[in-house]
């Protein structure tokens, strides 16, 4: 494990600030009116604008489903991948070339369902990417089947019968799997979502932003109004949305080398992710600075301190391959 620990993120930035509309591609989204996807893609465009990222250094990967199309709408290198496989694509890209900023998106079915294995293992690696999950509890593009985040007993109008499988808790799962930044936001809380995405991109390591969003066509249980209506606390009416900082909870690990404090904080973060409430709690549940996959690679493979894997020189100016094979062949020489 790397001994030196860099915690500051260095991002490729512009001297000028592009307006969010300049970061829209000229392809128009074909989502249903009122879809939460609009809010999320807007927030991503705003975050990229605010951080002044060089758009050509941004690789924006997406899975399959309604959310998958988001890769077509940001004016950056947009890569629409396979169902459930967005994380392997994003990880492969970031490891090969750590100089680009890698953002991955996908739906709850894509990431927590068919891609669940990759979701879990991405935590173990701590590759420096940002993963934004569009969570609406249904598989929209195939007409509203239950996703892994739909609670047991629920029956959105698209289901013939009530749902009889339990939901997963993506935040707790991410914390347990080793993600080093875990947050929840909401598609139409533009300010919070933009800031959370910026924080996630600024975090050095693997970040999960689970974004609640309405599906106006198939999920009638949690429409936009659900998020704006108030909740009766017994004494007073409170807004549905609550921010973590209002609760006094703080999920930031100050010193990861203090293992006892680190473990205690991790357990507290998982407990917070499971806290029973009628409100939708937004905020950063967990953040810790640990060596990234690239840091650990550099320890094992010193040459990678100097070069990205894809940039290790292997030919001369005349395109003649010039890797010296003598150490590769040494054990075979007779």
């Amino acid at each position, binding site marked *: 494990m790397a001994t030196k620990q860099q915690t500051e993120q260095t991002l490729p930035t512009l001297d*000028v600030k*592009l307006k969010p509309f*300049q970061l829209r591609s*000229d*392809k128009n989204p074909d989502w249903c009116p009122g879809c939460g996807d609009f809010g999320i893609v807007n927030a991503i465009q705003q975050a990229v604008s605010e951080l002044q990222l*060089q*758009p*050509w*250094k941004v*690789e924006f*990967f997406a899975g399959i489903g309604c959310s998958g199309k988001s*890769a*077509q709408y940001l*004016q*950056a*290198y*947009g*890569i*629409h*991948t*396979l169902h459930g*496989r967005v*994380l*392997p*694509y*994003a*990880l*492969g*890209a970031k*490891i*090969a*070339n750590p*100089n*680009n900023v890698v953002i991955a998106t996908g739906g709850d079915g894509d990431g927590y369902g068919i891609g669940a*294995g*990759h979701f*879990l*293992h991405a935590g173990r690696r701590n590759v420096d990417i940002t993963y934004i999950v569009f969570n609406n509890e249904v598989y929209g593009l195939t007409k509203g089947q239950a996703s892994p985040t739909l609670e047991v007993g629920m029956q959105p109008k698209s289901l013939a019968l009530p749902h009889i499988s339990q939901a997963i808790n993506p935040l707790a799962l991410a914390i347990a799997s080793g993600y080093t930044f875990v947050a929840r936001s909401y598609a139409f809380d533009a300010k919070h979502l933009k800031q959370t995405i910026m924080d996630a991109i600024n975090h050095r390591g693997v970040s999960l932003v689970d974004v609640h969003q309405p599906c106006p066509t198939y999920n009638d249980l949690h429409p936009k109004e659900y998020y704006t209506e108030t909740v009766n606390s017994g004494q007073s009416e409170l807004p549905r949305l609550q921010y973590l900082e209002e609760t006094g909870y703080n999920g930031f690990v100050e010193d990861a080398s203090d293992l006892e404090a680190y473990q205690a904080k991790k357990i507290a973060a998982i407990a917070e992710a499971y806290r029973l409430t009628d409100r939708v709690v937004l905020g950063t549940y967990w953040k810790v600075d640990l060596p990234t996959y690239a840091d650990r*690679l550099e320890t*094992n*493979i010193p*040459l*990678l301190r100097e070069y990205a*894997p*894809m940039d*290790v020189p*292997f*030919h001369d100016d005349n*395109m*003649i*391959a010039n*890797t010296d*094979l003598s*150490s*590769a*062949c040494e*054990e*075979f*020489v*007779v």
Partner: protein
Amino acid sequence: MSRITETSWMIGGPQGSGVDSSATLFARAMAVAGFWVYGKREYHSNIKGKHSYFQIRASHDVVRSHIDPIHMLATFEDSTAVIHAHEILPEGALIYDPGLTKPEVLEMDASVKLFPLDYEGIIRELAEEEGKPAAKLAIVKNTISVAASLALYGVGVDVLEEALKGLFHGKKSKLVGINLKAGIKAYEAIKAIAHAQDFKYQMQEQPNKPEAESRLLMNGAAACGIGKLKAGMRFQTYYSITPAVDECIYLEQHSEYGIVVYQAEDEIASINMANGAAVTGARVATATSGPGFCLKAEGIGWAGMNEVPTVIFNYMRGGPSTGLPTRSEQGDLLFAVNIGHGDFPKIVLSPGDMEECFEDGFNCFNFAERYQTPVIVLVDKALANSTQSIKKFADQGLRVDRGKRVTKVDSYDPADPSTGLPKFPRFQITEDGISPRPIPGTPGGIHFLTGDEHTEYGFITEEPAVRMQMMEKRARKLLVAANEIPEHLQFKVYGPENADLTIIGWGSTKGAVLDALERFAEQGKSVNYLHIRLMSPFPVDAITRILNNAKQRLIIESNFTNQLAKLIRQETGIDIEHKAVKYTGRPFSQCEILEAVKEVQEKQSRKVVLINGH
């Protein structure tokens, strides 16, 4: 007495008992003695206990395959002699531990010479001299078997010392001394047996000794890995699977090249990570074997659709399903050329020997980047796990071709991006079907990729006209590849022109056939060999011409349904009249090629099924 110029030697034992290291030491010793060496490794899908064996052929001339009978069987436990003694030639030798093996109960030729070797005694003696517990020295058993074999062959003890130094270098060099001492004792023990002097199959000294350190004792898996390193591959993904894992382990041991070998959580992750890295502009490959190759189908289709240069090495083992995990088969050919749903171009190569492994390991990246499409390399386990002495690879002057990879867009000045962020026509319709490919990070190169059908900028479309243009564009690349890939990388004919019989084959079968061609030449038989390496795009015209001109045709392959014969028929309309197959999971021996040809020439057999090997 007369000595021989070529021999077949075998060692066996339970897995984990050092059979591999014994065989490697023996092969190295014979190579040090100046012989040319070929070794075949057979093992179970098991960590410890099941029977494995290694067969080594050593010769004055180049050898590329094994023969079935053996001159000498070296054993250090009780099971190997029971299984293999019947394969020993008349007047061959059996080396055995008299405390464990009773020769009188073995099924073998009565003339086989017996060489009991007191392993325990030698180890006890050594332990006393060294002041170490005998149990700690049990591992020198392997060296004892090898030294005894060398002594019988009449190969000097100096060769053993040299071979031990080659095997145990660096941190392990302290092991040379103790092994050499054990070896010398085994030498003496064998020399003390009176009939050792009369052993019929002693090796004649090599008159044309190749220069020391001019050769490599190589296996196919490492040869592929070395080709990839030369090609600049610095990222490989895999999921643990036999036999593909051998190449991955080898590469990971060479971190001095800056190579990342990534063990993914599963096969699907490993193909899609490779796709992601290839999109980013890396030279990247993933390695797998049958079951994993099946799981990669969707990812390979994505690479085809998005014109991404991903390289996939499929080490072929016996199928279907888990099949024969550690045995060899050429059973994935038709699957490889058809992998993925829908139509997209793929390049499929299949090397036939160590040199071709190196060449294809290098060239596959040139092809992938030039034609912007996935390249699949099929390597049979028999080749991956075989050992062969070869001349050092011709690795100078090899040209890297990165195709239409773009790292700078001249028309775009990023000084003030607020004046606009152009998009790039990544899938521009071109005459050759190949479009400029900016890699992410390139200002002015912004474009989109999607597995959906797309426009030239990569935006999703379902327009019939665009769909047609894009299908046609992608398909054109394969036609261009068929014309451009040099002929010697597509196929080669070995042996006399206008032969009476033309053998057709691919992959590791090449070694056994080339060795058989030398016998045919000695026997005055006119036989040649068409070796096919490029399976997609298939060299239709040339193969049609060669097959039409052949007088009689015999196709030989390691699978049940004659997959290459089917592919040839599909591509050329030619039905090859004689077929020989083997589907035991064991590779062809030279003897079996001779047998198949005999069956065809003498009995006009349409289909010959070969079965040799345990």
